[in-house]
């Protein structure tokens, strides 16, 4: 517990006591990238001619934007778990925690489908869309509150 609080103290200092703002920016970026991921996947699954780019380019962009989103998501999740995580009220906080946990469960499932399950690629669109919806819920239960509180 002490270690976690010290970590947050450190992060607060290095962000000039603007840790929450940094988290808001990172969470919004992850949400936007998750939306882009769905659109790029729709392109390389040939469901749309999004932006007129080729399927190969869409796949490459999908991979790299996914990596950026994952790094940001892990950093935000760590700062949440090390810091404010714990309370189950009000309801917004409880829902935010549930969606946060769900995000990493879905990510794990998606990676397992990608790497382990043969022919599992049919389930990837479902996992991808689920992930986007979970990130949308995380954003709505955190950033939306941050914005409306000001």
């Amino acid at each position, binding site marked *: *517990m002490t270690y*976690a*609080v010290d970590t*947050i*103290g450190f992060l*607060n200092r290095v962000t000039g*006591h603007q*840790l*929450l703002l940094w988290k808001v920016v990172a969470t919004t970026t992850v949400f936007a990238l998750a939306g882009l991921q769905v659109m790029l996947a729709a392109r390389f699954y040939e469901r749309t001619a999004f932006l007129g780019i080729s399927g190969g380019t869409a796949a490459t962009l999908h991979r790299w934007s996914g990596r950026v989103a*994952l790094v940001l998501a*892990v950093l935000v*999740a*760590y700062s*949440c*778990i090390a*810091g*404010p*995580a*714990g*309370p*189950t*009220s*009000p309801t917004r*906080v409880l829902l935010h*925690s549930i969606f*946060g*946990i769900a995000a*990493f*469960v879905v*990510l*794990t499932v998606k*990676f*397992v489908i*990608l*790497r382990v399950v043969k022919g599992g690629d049919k389930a990837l669109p479902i996992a991808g869309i689920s992930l986007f919806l979970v990130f949308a819920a995380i954003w709505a239960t955190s950033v939306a*509150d*941050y914005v409306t*509180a*000001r």
Partner: protein
Amino acid sequence: MWVVICGVFVALAVAAPVKILRTQSEARKATKEAKVIPVAAAKDVTKAKSAAATTGTVKMYEIAFTPKTITVARGATVTFDNQDTAPHTVTDTAAGIDSGVLNPGQKFSLVVTRPLDYVCTIHSSMHGRIELSG
């Protein structure tokens, strides 16, 4: 490599509920024991020399300051009592005062010589105001 990445995902997915359960357990334990925690040394807001005329208490509970607005006399000592299960801060929006992280059960006191708008920098929805009477 992907195994390591999955391991990080699983660790984060498990760490959150573990922390929630631990926090809830600590809160229940703290309520049972009802420990009296000494008030931290009062911090003077603007080096006011006058003694506190009155006192006021603001409770931090369920991610909120209660009451949100408190009115006290100039020079009053206001104590912030974290009765929540989460750490909070009392941070002046106009800069100058910052309690630092107050863990559950900790208190922070200050002598008020001017109206004050404050927030918790950990929880964006937490904000409050101290007004001066008279």
